[in-house]
């Protein structure tokens, strides 16, 4: 899931307006941002699930044993929230840490039992993941729903920032439209395996 995380962040912006949108968008992908260099260096890796078409949407088993372990995700979320709290205050720090951890919660719905509890999968504890990716249409529908709800909530909140001010209303409409287009583009690219 990529677009769905962005949709959730947009919804949070409507409810936590003092927290910057760019930081929410960064926070919602924070675990994957850390994941990218670890994949490049071979510490974490991806493989195609048995029976799935390589490169297709929802086709992966993700061995992100550090960034997407329960304890690893909590630690990374606390780190991000703590860093942002320095600049944006305790409340925004908490919101951004929670949004970062929401990535793990949504991923647990989708992943195929590949998310360990402890970093590196130490201790041989059960791996988590409810496996919604086994049903790509359902997981795509969940992403689309998150995008739609998030974009509508954001757009409505932005449009009511300065009633009567046409300049603000135009800018808010531009932001709302671009946010929706960006989320849908991201979802579309994911669906075609890009």
């Amino acid at each position: 899931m990529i677009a769905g995380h962005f949709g959730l962040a947009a919804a949070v912006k409507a409810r936590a307006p003092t927290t910057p949108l760019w930081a929410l968008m960064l926070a919602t992908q924070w675990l994957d941002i850390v994941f990218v260099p670890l994949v490049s260096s071979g510490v974490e890796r991806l493989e195609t699930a048995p029976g799935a078409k390589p490169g297709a949407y929802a086709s992966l088993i993700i061995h992100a044993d550090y960034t997407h372990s329960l304890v690893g995700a909590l630690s990374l979320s606390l780190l991000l929230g703590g860093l942002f709290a320095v600049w944006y205050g305790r409340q925004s720090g908490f919101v951004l840490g929670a949004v970062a951890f929401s990535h793990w919660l949504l991923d647990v719905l989708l992943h195929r039992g590949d998310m360990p509890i402890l970093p590196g999968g130490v201790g041989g504890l059960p791996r988590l993941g409810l496996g919604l990716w086994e049903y790509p249409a359902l997981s795509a529908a969940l992403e689309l729903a998150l995008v739609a709800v998030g974009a509508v909530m954001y757009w409505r909140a932005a449009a009511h920032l300065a009633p009567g001010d046409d300049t603000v209303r135009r800018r808010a409409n531009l932001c709302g439209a671009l946010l929706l287009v960006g989320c849908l583009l991201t979802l579309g690219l994911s669906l075609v395996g890009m």
Partner: protein
Amino acid sequence: MSFMIGLVLLAGVVGFLDSRLPWPRAGRDGRHP
């Protein structure tokens, strides 16, 4: 690819444009950061 495009577009472009909107702002102690 979708990850990078989404991040650049949403955190970068939309995030920048959104920062020009008059959202309430609060830093530590309620002051601007």
